[in-house]
């Protein structure tokens, strides 16, 4: 009869922390953590002591004081008498706006260029390779400045639209492209809710109707799928879906009294309508086209990661190339594409801090630029800026990770 004996269980000795491989890595990690913490503590106490010696203090009171300066693009009400905090919020919204727009267009550019880089057509393939290499290898700051400079140099100034025989004219009498920005007709409501019928409530209502339509069409599609699975016959849903999309929104817009405000030249500038500022366009376009080049490479890598056998098998089953791409290749490629795509979105958000180069009032330009400079509160402003970018980046990461989890290979 054999008995299982436990391995000798010696008492724990301190020397085991160093000589026993079970504990050694823990020891080293603990030491590293303590050293790191001491470094930060030293830096912080040093900073605090030096600030005290200089008679300065860390205070965020300045956020409640009037900012005193004006901002050219404000998504919320803002005057020079608003607080520094509100100026920071204006900057935050501007950053989010350009980051959001650039993420969408960069994805469109990137997916198009990435797919076309694998085109069987030699010319298309080489053109896309050219695009990727050119835009990827020149710093984005240079692109922002180049695009802005070209825009201001090529497009006419508003004064060119003036007079009997003006050298420039508006497109369809509605759109004015000037070197200060593009003026387009702006929608407004004559019978809406809120002040002068133009409260934010109207837009929320419009968005709610659109979301409702989206959900309704999804349900129609789902029921069509179920019917097809059950009977093998797919009911026609096109007209029903079109109706769900268009009828409610048209009714709502008509009820609110949607009207268009056309831009017109008055004084120095066009007045009325909606202005899309030159700095926004330059920054948006530069970020999109620059990051699009990186995304194109991610997309190409993702597609090439799907084994050729899959394509050939799908072709053998008689699927057309477009359906092979849509049904077989892209769903698998997405698993490879999404993780690097997250970091490209983060890059766009962080690169948008170059906005001040073209005078776009993002958070770095308002809080980290003018407010910092006028109040002299450099440490406070920079800490706030770091916090903001950190939070935004983590949020984008979190959202994209949720999407990634939804798309990734389900192992059962």
């Amino acid at each position, binding site marked *: 009869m054999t008995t299982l004996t436990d391995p000798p269980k010696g008492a724990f000795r301190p020397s085991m922390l160093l000589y026993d491989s079970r504990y050694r890595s823990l020891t080293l990690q603990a030491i590293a953590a303590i050293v790191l913490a001491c470094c930060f503590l030293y830096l912080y106490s040093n900073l605090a002591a030096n600030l005290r010696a200089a*008679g300065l203090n860390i205070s965020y009171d300045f956020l409640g004081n009037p900012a005193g*300066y004006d901002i*050219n693009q404000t998504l919320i009400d803002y005057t020079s008498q608003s607080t520094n905090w509100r100026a920071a919020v204006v900057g935050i919204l501007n950053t989010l706006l350009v980051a959001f727009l650039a993420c969408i267009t960069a994805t469109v550019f990137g997916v198009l260029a990435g797919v076309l880089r694998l085109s069987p057509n030699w010319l298309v393939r080489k053109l896309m390779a050219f695009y990727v290499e050119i835009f990827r290898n020149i710093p984005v700051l240079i692109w922002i400045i180049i695009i802005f400079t070209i825009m201001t140099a090529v497009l006419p100034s508003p*004064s060119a639209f003036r007079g009997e025989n003006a050298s420039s004219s508006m497109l369809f009498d509605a759109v004015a492209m000037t070197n*200060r920005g593009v003026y387009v007709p702006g929608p407004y409501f004559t019978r809406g809710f809120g002040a002068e019928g133009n409260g934010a409530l109207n837009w929320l209502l419009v968005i709610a109707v659109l979301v409702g339509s989206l959900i309704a069409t999804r349900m129609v599609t789902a029921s069509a799928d179920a019917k097809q699975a059950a009977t093998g016959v797919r009911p026609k849903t096109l007209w029903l879906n079109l109706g769900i999309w268009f009828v409610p929104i048209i009714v709502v817009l008509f009820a609110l009294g949607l009207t268009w405000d056309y831009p017109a030249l008055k004084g*120095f500038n066009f007045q009325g309508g909606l202005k899309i500022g030159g700095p926004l366009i330059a920054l948006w376009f530069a970020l999109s086209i620059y990051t699009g080049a990186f995304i194109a490479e991610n997309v190409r890598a993702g597609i090439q990661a799907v084994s050729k056998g899959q394509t050939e098998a799908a072709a053998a089953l008689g699927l057309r190339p477009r359906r092979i791409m849509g049904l077989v290749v892209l769903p698998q490629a997405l698993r490879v594409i999404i993780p690097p795509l997250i970091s490209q979105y983060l890059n766009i958000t962080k690169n948008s801090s170059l906005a001040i180069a073209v005078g776009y009032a993002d958070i770095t330009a308002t809080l980290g630029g003018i407010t910092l400079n006028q109040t002299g509160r450099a440490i406070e402003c920079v800490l706030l800026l770091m916090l903001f970018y950190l939070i935004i980046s983590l949020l984008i990461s979190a959202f994209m990770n949720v999407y990634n989890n939804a798309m990734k290979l389900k192992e059962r």
Partner: protein
Amino acid sequence: MKKTAIFGALTIAGLAAGAAAAGTLDDVKARGKLNCGVTTGLVGFAAPDANGKWEGFDVAVCRAVAAAVLGDGDAVEFVPTTGKTRFTALASGEIDVLARNTTWTFSRDVDLKFNFIGVNYYDGQGFMVPKALGVSSAKDLDGATVCIQTGTTTELNLADFFRTNNISYEPVPIETNAEAQQQYLAGACDVYTTDASGLAATRATFETPGDHILLPEIISKEPLGPLVRHGDDEWGDVVAWTLYALIAAEELGVTSANVAEIGTSTNNPEIKRLLGTEGTLGEMMGVDADWAAKAIAVGGNYGEIFAKNIGEETPIGLARGLNAQWTNGGLIYAPPFR
């Protein structure tokens, strides 16, 4: 990028700032070099020349202080600072004096704990517009697009001016003078506004300066001067009185040409006290007796420095105006040396 630069500078400055707690004057003497904060480059005020030697109106103040304290006008380490980094650099002790056409304001003096030790240039904010616009007063600028060089007091003045006059405008903040100039010339903005001296300097570089006019309104007071940290009065005195020595020298007729001999040849007791051939002014301040003579010998008196860097003979072509001696109807005035 800028964030990390500021933070890195803060950290390094924090680590090195132990020394800054002692008297700055002793520190500078022990180091044998003056650390002077200047702009990253504004021709006429502070910019490196073709040989990499810093030249300009603000630079001359730094060199004069170095000469007064260390006896050598070249014993200066020029630290280029931007509108954003300048105050941090001074507060942390990275630089001993900031001579960077900085406007003397209440909050900078009181809240940021600095001491402005005098004014070396009286400026004011002006507007430049193309002549073709047909504008003759800044009050006609309702609805105009205005290019501003950001990071200065100009943004606040501009907002105040338009608010007071109840007219609207659209600001285009631009980081550097060069970019603002390009935007203005391309017609992306109707007006360019900054300190009147800067406008004159900018207009001088245009192909056709005659096509642009400076509007008559000067909407702010911009007294530009060097500043030091609050709380080290001995050092503040040295910098202040070096500037006053340059100003007094012009008033008294002491120039870089005659400074070597006028101290002994003159009968004017104030010149003798200034140049240290009589009295103990230098000793009181903790520097050599001939400190002022050395300071003046580097670049000449205030008038010579003005004429050489930004005066009417230079491309910048600024008239003395408010910056003439008080005896000529200007505001430049030095307290008596006694």
